[in-house]
C-alpha cells in the first residue's frame, strides 16, 4: 500500500472502526457531560480535536526523538500528561481571548480536557500500535479528535430530540442517556473488523 492509502485507512479506522469513545470507552465524562446541546458539543469536540492533535504529534516527537535515546520509556506517562496539560492551558488562554462565550459555557469542562482519558489514551495507543511515521501519527491524532467530535455531536443531536420524547418517569435524565449511549455503541459495533 502506498502512503496515502495507509493514511486514509488509518484515518477511517480511528474515526469509525476504532472510535475512542464508542469502542474504547474513553472520554466518557465530557461525552455525557457536555452533550446537552449540539453547538456546545461541537465546540467541545473542536477543543478536544485541537488538543489531541497537538498533544498526539508532540508526544510522538518527544517519544521518538527524546525519550527512546536514553532509554527513558518509563517516564512516558509523566511526559505525556505534561504535554497535554500544557496544550490545554494554551487552548484555554486562546478561547478566553477570542471566544469568551464559548469559554463561559464550557466552564469546568475545559480544564477537565487535561484529564480526558481519550487524549492520554490516544497518545499511548499511537505508541502501542507502533506508529513509526510522524505523518501517520498526526493523521491518527487528528482522526481521533474528529471521531470524538462526531460521537459527541451524534449524542447531542439525539439528546436534543430526547427532550421532546415521552420518556418513562423512571428513565428520565441519566438512565435514558446511558441507554442511548449503549445503543449508539452497539450501532457502531457494525463497523468492527472493517479495517485493522
Amino acid at each position, binding site marked *: 500500500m502506498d502512503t496515502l492509502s495507509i493514511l486514509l485507512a488509518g484515518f477511517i479506522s480511528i474515526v469509525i472502526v476504532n472510535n475512542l469513545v464508542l469502542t474504547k470507552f474513553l472520554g466518557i465524562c465530557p461525552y455525557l457531560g457536555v452533550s446537552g446541546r449540539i453547538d456546545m458539543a461541537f465546540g467541545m469536540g473542536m477543543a478536544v480535536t485541537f488538543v489531541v492533535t497537538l498533544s498526539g504529534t508532540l508526544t510522538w516527537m*518527544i517519544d521518538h526523538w*527524546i*525519550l527512546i535515546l*536514553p532509554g*527513558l520509556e*518509563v*517516564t512516558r506517562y*509523566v*511526559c505525556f500528561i*505534561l*504535554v497535554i496539560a*500544557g496544550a490545554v*492551558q*494554551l487552548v484555554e*488562554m*486562546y478561547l*478566553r*481571548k477570542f471566544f*469568551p462565550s464559548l469559554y463561559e459555557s464550557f466552564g469546568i469542562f475545559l480544564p477537565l480536557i487535561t484529564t480526558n482519558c481519550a487524549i492520554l489514551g490516544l497518545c499511548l495507543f499511537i505508541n502501542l500500535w507502533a506508529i513509526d511515521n510522524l505523518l501517520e501519527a498526526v493523521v491518527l491524532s487528528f482522526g481521533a479528535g474528529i471521531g470524538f467530535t462526531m460521537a459527541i455531536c451524534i449524542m447531542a443531536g439525539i439528546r436534543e430530540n430526547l427532550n421532546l420524547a415521552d420518556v418513562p418517569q423512571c428513565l428520565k435524565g441519566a438512565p435514558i442517556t446511558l441507554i442511548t449511549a449503549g445503543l449508539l455503541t452497539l450501532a457502531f459495533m457494525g463497523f468492527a473488523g472493517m479495517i485493522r
Partner: protein
Amino acid sequence: MTLPDILQLWNDAWPAGLTMLGLGFGFAIVLLIASEKLKVAVDPKIEQIQKALPQIDCGACGFAGCASYARAVAQQPDLIGKCAPGGAEAANKIAQVLNLQISDSGAPKRPIIHCRARTQDKTFYAEYQGILSCTAANALPNVQACKFGCLGYSDCTEACRFDALHIIDGIAIVDYEKCTGCSACSRACPRNLIEMVPFNHENMLSVACSNNENGKTTRSMCRVGCIGCGLCVKQTDLFSVENNNARIDYAKYQPTEQTETAVNKCPTGVIVYCGKSAPPPRMPKQKTAPASH
C-alpha cells in the same frame, strides 16, 4: 543499601530528571509567551466587587454564584442589592466600587413560617411511613389533616446551608442568629409556607397559619390554626383577612399598641413574633382542643 547501590540509583535516575526538567522548562517558556500574547484585561472593578461579596455562592441573587453576580453587577449597576447574605453592607461596598450613591437598600429579608403547629397540635388521619421528605409526603392526601401546614420532614432544613433551620416538635423553627436570608428554604417548601419578609424591626409579627378553610374545619384539625375571625382586623388595618386567613401588610408594618392588643386578643394565638429575641408563642387555650376522631 550500600554506597555503590545509591550511586547506581543516582546514575540511572539523573537522565530522567534532567529530561523532565528540560521538557517542563520548555513548556513553561511557551506558556509564558502565550500568556503574555493572549492576556485578557479583566475589569479591576469586578475583582473588587467580588471581594465585597460573601463568597458563599448561595444563588439568592439569581446568578450562578458570587463571581457571575459580580460580573453582572459591574455591567448593570441596577442589579445592586440583590445579595441577600451580604445585605446592606455588601451593597454599600459595591456602590463605593462603582462610584454610586444608593439610597437605603431596604431591610434584610428573613423567612417567616406560616405554620406553628407542633406534632401534638396537629391531627393525623393515618400514619405516614413513606420517604421522609416533605415533597413525597405532600403528594399523599389525607395523612396529615391540614393540607396547608408544615409536614416536618426537613426539606427546608436540608436546603439550608447555614444550619439556621431546625425541625423541633414537628415544626420548622428559624434560627434568626444564623439565617442569612438566602431564601433557599422558601424555594424548597412544597407547601409554600416560608415567606421572605423585610425585617425592619428586630422582631416581626407573623400570622403562623396558611389554612384557607373555614374556621370550624380549621379548628377541627389544628389547635393553633387561624380561624379567620377578624378580631385582629378590628384592632388595626395592618391585618386583613383573605380566604379565612389573616394576613399582615408588611409594606406598612409598624407595631403599635393596637397590634399588641390584636396579638393578645387572637383566640388561637396564631399571631406570633419572629426574630432574634422573639418572645415564645402563646400556648393555645384548652377550649380550642380539636374534636376527637
